């Protein structure tokens, strides 16, 4: 899956007087106290609503951080290493990209989403 934006969204973005903002919503899980694992149907239903209400840009769940590979090709030789770039108790478990008019709108959605996916969320604007 790649992170591409629906072309229709770009159209609405340039047309409206009130420009939309895009927010990256990171789903944060905890190794020692993970969120419930039965949230998939609820998340799907929530995503349907995000799409219907015009907020949805992208959503995706991630594999375990152990499955990550780091590559650094800035030097003479490329270096490939196993595992995430940052080992931590808390880790990125998935992400959303939403389009919303402002932070209050994004936070209201995030409050709901946190309950739906039973995890902590970070809301961060795209530059």
């Amino acid at each position, binding site marked *: 899956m790649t992170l591409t934006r629906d072309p229709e969204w770009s159209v609405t973005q340039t047309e409206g007087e009130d420009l939309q*903002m895009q927010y990256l919503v990171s789903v944060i899980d905890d190794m020692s106290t993970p969120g419930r694992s039965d949230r998939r149907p609820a998340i799907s239903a929530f995503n349907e609503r995000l799409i219907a209400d015009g907020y949805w840009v992208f959503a995706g769940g991630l594999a375990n951080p152990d499955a990550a590979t780091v590559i650094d090709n800035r030097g003479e030789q490329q270096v490939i290493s196993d595992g995430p770039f940052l080992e931590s108790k808390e880790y990125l478990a998935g992400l959303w990209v939403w389009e919303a*008019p*402002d*932070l*209050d709108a994004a936070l*209201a959605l995030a409050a709901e989403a946190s309950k739906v996916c039973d995890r902590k969320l970070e809301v961060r*604007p795209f*530059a």
Partner: protein
Amino acid sequence: MNDAEDAITRAYRDEWARVVAGLTRRFGSLDLAEEATAEAFATAVVRWPADGVPPNPGAWLTTTANRKGIDRLRRENQRDAKHKEALMVSDNDPTEPIGVIEDDRLRLIFTCCHPALSMENRVALTLRMIGGLTMPEIARAFLVPENTMGRRITRAKAKIKAARIPYRMPSAADLPGRVSGVLAVLFLIFNEGYLTTGPGNGPVRADLTADAIRLTRLVCALMPEDGEVAGLLALMLLTESRRTARISVNGELIPLDEQDRGAWDPALIAEGHRLVRERLAAAAAGEVPGRYQILAAIAAVHTSARDIRDTDWSQVLALYDQLVNVDPSPIVALNRAIAVAEVDGPETALAIVDRLETELNGYHAFHATRADLLRRPDRNPDARAAFGKAIDLAGNTAETAHLTRRRDQLP
């Protein structure tokens, strides 16, 4: 002070927030609004003494600040053509009616006190944007270097812009939570003035308590229907009324039971009591009072007693019982225990206080209260130890002096 200086001081107090708020709506940028408003005031400092104070200083400042803002945008536009369109849009804006401008200040307050900003950034931003305090003034008030305070304000403004924290009233559903966020900022400013921390520092900063009261008055005027805002204002006024009686000439804290009640400020007490009576009438009509209204009612009971022996402690205890329901924090439970001691005796109170140890072990008032309740012949060593812990933890110079004297008075 001459007339022009006087007018400028008054304008700072009365017009700053209005001008910044109006410009923020017009230009959509806190940065630009702040800079243009500061420039307009700087112009007033030069022009008013020479040309005389304009008949409507607020309007003069708004017009001047608007012009400064447009000048600034024009200068930036020469570098960035895209902004030109934005300028044309705002240039064609019709003059807004007064009602909208009133709302602007509230919008600005809710933006500066947004929960997505850290508490220290909210405080700094509120004092700058609404209070009109200069960066050095805010830095001095909070005992941080000027560039630290500058960075806080810059960071807060950058986040508002980057994350697009909106410039508008919160939705009706969010309003109660957002108002209590604003009140927490104002109360923190007041408390920092009332109980200044830091050893090398005077015990009270009257300028900060005055700023907090001024800002709370403004919020109260803008949201007259909100009982908690009125409650917080009453609480501040009744607390402030005792300010001069609270610190001895030697800079030592004087507790409530030893204060010269004749030195309390009767005008502040009268205003505070009037507000509390209004809130009591609203409560009688079915409104559920929040924590600030209950705290104000407790302060009203204390300020109604001409002598500590006249204090209606059962009324104080009844109010604390109410407060525990609204705010079940251990600090409220600790303060309630002081009223319990007066009504049911120190033994009962001590049992309550001892149960709070795990949560409040690092809080000086916990140990000070325990020490007070332990002052009996057989427990004097325990009282002494508790005073010692309280002295180690207290950050306020007047409190430390008071606690030390109390400890040294033990037999």
